[in-house]
């Protein structure tokens, strides 16, 4: 595991081990915010940025503070605090420099805090025992993979508005089934590279 290069992990995190389509993380905002390609692109960018920064911070905190002090069992609460603080920072930044994006994202910017993909990525780098550079590769790849998936679904949902779907399946259920087809398509990448 430890010999895998950061580059391979980066590619694998986007395609074969897509954090959304194979690990199901970040579904809430994925379903709710995939109506428009533009909004989803903004959210995807925000998530990628937050994810890479928080994986780096959490890696450093875990290996240089929690492990030496022997308080590894507090990792959940420490990680979520780091993420919450960082998201707050990004929110202020976006509000200051791009009010348009700020209003487009609305409630979903603070909700990045409770986006499981962010916390999940931090937990994965600990569970899979990645080195520092592997963690950077994984954080970046997972973020980009998430963004790719949400933009793809947004495109599909824009087209789907014109199709004739049975009433109970409109909205969330059909989005879920389309995501299933998307996940099947991504399974085609399996075997290209593999981690885990």
């Amino acid at each position, binding site marked *: 595991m430890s010999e895998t290069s950061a580059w391979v992990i980066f590619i694998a995190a986007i395609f074969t081990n897509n954090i959304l*389509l*194979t*690990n*199901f*993380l*970040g*579904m*809430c905002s994925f*379903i709710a915010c995939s109506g428009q390609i533009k909004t989803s692109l903004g959210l995807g960018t925000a998530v990628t940025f937050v994810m890479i920064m928080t994986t780096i911070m959490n890696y450093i905190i875990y290996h240089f503070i929690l492990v030496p002090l022997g308080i590894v*069992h*507090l*990792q*959940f*609460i420490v990680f*979520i*605090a780091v993420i*919450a603080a960082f998201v707050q920072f990004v929110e202020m930044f976006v509000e200051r420099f791009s009010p348009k994006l700020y209003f487009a994202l609305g409630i979903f910017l603070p909700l990045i*805090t*409770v*986006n*499981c993909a*962010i*916390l*999940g990525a931090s*937990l*994965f780098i600990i*569970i899979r025992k990645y080195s520092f550079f592997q963690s950077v590769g994984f954080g970046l790849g997972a973020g980009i993979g998430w963004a790719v998936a949400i933009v793809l679904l947004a495109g599909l949902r824009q087209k789907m508005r014109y199709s004739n779907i*049975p*009433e*109970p*399946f*409109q*909205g*969330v*259920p*059909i*989005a*879920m*089934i389309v*995501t*299933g*087809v998307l*996940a*099947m398509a991504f*399974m085609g990448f399996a075997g290209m590279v593999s981690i885990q």
Partner: protein
Amino acid sequence: MTCEPTGLCQGKGLLTLKEGAWANNPLAIQVLGICSALAVTNRLENSLVMGAALIFVCVGSNLLVSLLRKVTPYRFRMIAEVSIIATFVILFDQFLRAFYWDMSKQLGPYVGLIITNCIVMGRAEAFALQNPPVLSIVDGIANGLGYAVVLAIIGFFRELLGAGEILGREIPGFSSWYTPNQLMILAPGAFFALGIVIGIFNWIKGPEPQENK
């Protein structure tokens, strides 16, 4: 929001229970907390443990948030809620590690991810902050139960169709001729199963929840 002394808050408890577990089912109607619902339902056993975990965390955090609701400053309520929830999740995680190591290994990061499960946070924010402790416990049980039941349904069908077994055991008269469809165990099967379950819930409930789409 005063509680009558008799019964469980004079039928109010029952109403809360019904609301949480069926009419406003967190998973199938409000579509919250789907990450874990998709990830752990590949086997029925995992689904049941995850359901139990969520009931425990939801009840515990609802109770504590409700007890502290008068002394929590409004501006800090989010961070207070997250810390309370994280505390209960750590408790459950340590319990699993101590007594059910295999299960803890299988669920992997998803136990920790209960912290970011929107159901727990949503109930603490929307219900426990305004209601007395007893009612909050009922609400926690109701929502946890609603989640656990849907999880069990999905887990049941995914294990049945994907492995041809239930709880790791063969079913007489079924497993002998059924060819397991691996797809149901893998990621796409999870999406299909949840999509169909939500669709069926919508169909039973009638068309009205579609209006604000």
